[in-house]
C-alpha cells in the first residue's frame, strides 16, 4: 500500500476498511479515495459508522479488515508516519477542562514535537484568526460551545497537518459560530489542506466538494453535491397546512407518492407520479378531509436527498429481511 509515486496526490485511500463492535458491523468494507486538497463530506444517519471510519483513518482505532493509506502510509503498519500529517478532531470535546485555551494548545503541540518559539507564534496566529485571543487564559471548562469547537480545531492545526479529520465539528454550535467555523475551513482549503468532515448538517454538506453517503457501515452513494441531489427522482412538493401530522398520514397512501416527511412545519412529499402532482395531491387530500393551504413545488436540496437516501436504504433493509 505504500506507493510513493502518488503518495501526495491522494490524501486518503481506503480499501475494504472494516470494524465491528460486538455483533454490530460498524464499518463494513469501505472503499474511499480522497484526492489532496479537497473538502470531502461524510454524510449518513446516526450510527451509520461515520465516527468509526474517521477514527480508523486517524489511527485511533485499529481496523479489523482492509487498510487505509494516508498520503501513501498505511494506518495499520506505519501509524508513526501517518500521525504527523493528520489532525483529528473528535466528535466530543477532548481538551482538558481545567487548562486554559493557551495551555491546551501548548500541551498538545508539545506532544506533537512543535518547538517552543514556534508553538507561541502559531498559537498566537490561530487564536487571533479564530477570535480566541481575549480568552487565551480562560479555562476550557468555561468556554461556550462554539469557542470549544474552535479551540479543538486550533489544537488540531498547531502542528500544521496536511489532512484534517473532523468528526461532526459543529454539532451543538449556534448557526453564527458554524458559519465562522466553515469560513476557517474554507481558508484552510485555499491553503491546500485536505479536509474530511463528517456532518449531520445539510447546509454544510453543500459546501463540500465531494460527498460520500454512509449507511449501515457502507458507502451507498458518492459524488458532488449536485450528483447526490440528482439521485432524487420525481418532484418535490411542500405542503403548507395547519395539521401537518394528519396530512403526513393521509398522503402516504396516495399512489404516486414515493415518500413524505415533516420538514419544519411543512410536509415534504416526493412525487414520482405524472406531471399533475400538485393538482392530484390537493384533490386527494381534500377528499381525505384534511386541510391544505398551499401545495408548492420545491427545489431538491441536500435535505431531501438525505431523507431520500436514508429512506430507500431503510426500505432495502426491510425488504432484505
Amino acid at each position, binding site marked *: 500500500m505504500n506507493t510513493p509515486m502518488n503518495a501526495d496526490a491522494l490524501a486518503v485511500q481506503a480499501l475494504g476498511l472494516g470494524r465491528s463492535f460486538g455483533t454490530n458491523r460498524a464499518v463494513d468494507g469501505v472503499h474511499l479515495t480522497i484526492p489532496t486538497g479537497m473538502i470531502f463530506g461524510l454524510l449518513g444517519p446516526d450510527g451509520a459508522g461515520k465516527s468509526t471510519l474517521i477514527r480508523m483513518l486517524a489511527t485511533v482505532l485499529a481496523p479489523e479488515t482492509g487498510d487505509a493509506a494516508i498520503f501513501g502510509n498505511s494506518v495499520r503498519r506505519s501509524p508513526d508516519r501517518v500521525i504527523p500529517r493528520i489532525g483529528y478532531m473528535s466528535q466530543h470535546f*477532548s481538551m482538558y477542562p481545567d487548562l486554559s485555551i493557551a*495551555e491546551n494548545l501548548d500541551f498538545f503541540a508539545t506532544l506533537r514535537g512543535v518547538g517552543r518559539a514556534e508553538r507561541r507564534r502559531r498559537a498566537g496566529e490561530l487564536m487571533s484568526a479564530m477570535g480566541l485571543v481575549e480568552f487565551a487564559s480562560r479555562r476550557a471548562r468555561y468556554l461556550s460551545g462554539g469557542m470549544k469547537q474552535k479551540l479543538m480545531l486550533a489544537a488540531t492545526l498547531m502542528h500544521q497537518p496536511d489532512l484534517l479529520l473532523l468528526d461532526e465539528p459543529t454539532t451543538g454550535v449556534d448557526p453564527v459560530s458554524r458559519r465562522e467555523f466553515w469560513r476557517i475551513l474554507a481558508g484552510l482549503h485555499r491553503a491546500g489542506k485536505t479536509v474530511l468532515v463528517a456532518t449531520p448538517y445539510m447546509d454544510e454538506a453543500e459546501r463540500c466538494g465531494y460527498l460520500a453517503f454512509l449507511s449501515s457501515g457502507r458507502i451507498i452513494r458518492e459524488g458532488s453535491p449536485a450528483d447526490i441531489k440528482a439521485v432524487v427522482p420525481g418532484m418535490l412538493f411542500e405542503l403548507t397546512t395547519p395539521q401537518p401530522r394528519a396530512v403526513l398520514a393521509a398522503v402516504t397512501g396516495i399512489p404516486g407518492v414515493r415518500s413524505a416527511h415533516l420538514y419544519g412545519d411543512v410536509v415534504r412529499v416526493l412525487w414520482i407520479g405524472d406531471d399533475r402532482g400538485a393538482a392530484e395531491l390537493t384533490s386527494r387530500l381534500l377528499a381525505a378531509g384534511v386541510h391544505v393551504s398551499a401545495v408548492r413545488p420545491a427545489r431538491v436540496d441536500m435535505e431531501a436527498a438525505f431523507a431520500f437516501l436514508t429512506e430507500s436504504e431503510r426500505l432495502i433493509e426491510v425488504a432484505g429481511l
Partner: protein
Amino acid sequence: MRLLGYESRPTMKSALIRVGAVAGKEFKHLLRDPRVLATVLILPVLQLLLFAYAISFDVKNVPTVVLDQDNTPASRQYVQTYRSSEFFDVLGSADDLAQVDQLFDQNRVRIAVIVPSGFARSLDSGEKAQVAVLSDGSEPTSAQLAQAYATALNASYDQQVVVEWADRQGLDLAQVGAIEPRLRTWYNPEGKSSTFLIPGLMVVIIMIVTVQQTAVTLVREREQGTGEQMTVSPLRRGELMVGKLLPWTLLAFADMLAIALVGIWVFGLPLRGGIGFLAASSVVFVFAALGLGLIISAVAPSLETANISGLLIAFLPAFLLSGFAFPLDSIPTPLQWLSYAFPGRYMVTISRGVFLKGAGFAELWPELAALAGYALVVLLASSVLYRRRST
C-alpha cells in the same frame, strides 16, 4: 519532505520533552483541584494524627482489685508492687472471692490479684508461694498484657513466687507461657504503640493516597477524550506513564517526609537507620504503589469503578495485609500468601527496620529487591493493559 524528516528515529531529547509536558500538565491538574490537593497534602498528616491517637495498643491503668487473704507484712509488700506499677490501677481490696466475682460482673475491674493465706509461711519455709491473678478474658489485649506484666512483676519481686493463672473467661492456660513481653518491647522499651505503628502507618497512608489518585488518572483521560488526542501524537505509552508518575512520586515523597517529621517530633519516633536507604526504598515503593493505581486506571471502565477499586486495593490490603497493625505470622496462611501480592508488606518491613532497628541495605535488600521487581512488573503491566483497552 516532512515525511522524510520524520523518519529519523525519535530522539531521547524529544521523548524527554514529551514526558516533561505530561508531568507539567499533571501538576497543573493537581494545583487546580483543591480537593485533590487537600487529599494529598493535608489528609496524610491528619490521618497520621488520627490513627496514631486512635489506634493504640497501649494498656495502662488497668482497674485491679486485690484480695489479700494472708494479710502479713510479706503479702502486703507483694501487693504494694502492684500498687506502684503504672500498668495496674489498684482500686482497693476485696473482702472475699464473692466480692471479686461481683466486681468482674459489674465490669469495675479487669484484674484481680489473690494472695492466699499461707503466702508468708510458704516463703519463709522456702517453698513456692502460690498467687492467683485473675484476668477478664473478654478483653484479650488487656488480659494477655496483664498476665505478661504480672509475670514480669513477679520476676522483679525477688522471691520465688509461682503465679497460678486462672482464667475466668476461658483463656487457654497454655497460651500464658507463650507470651513473651520482652519480644514486644525489644526495640520499643517503653512499649509505646505509636512508635511501633508510625513507620507502618506511613506506608499505609502513602498507599492510600497514591493508589487512589492514580487509579482515576487514566480513566479520566479516556472519559475526557484527551487520551484519544494523545494517541494521535508521537507520545509513547511508556512516556505517558512516566510523565504521570513524576508529580505523584514527588508528592508522595513530600508526604512521607511530613509523616516522618511529625512522627519524630510529635511522637518521639526514633530514626536509627540510614535516611538514604529509607529514601531510596521509598521511591521504589511509591513507584510500585503508583503502578498498582495505574493498573486499576488502565482497566477500570469508569471513574466510579476506578475510585472504588482503588479504595479496595489500597486500603484493605494496606491495613490488613501489610503487617502494619497485625503481625503477618498470625494471619491465616492463604492471607499470608496474598499479602505478597501487595507492596505494603515489603515497605512496612523496611520502614520499621530502618526507623526502629537501625537496619540498612545489608539486612533489608531482599525486601527492596522484591519492591523493585514489583514496581517493574506493575508499571509494564499497566502500560500493556492501557494499550489493550484503548484500541
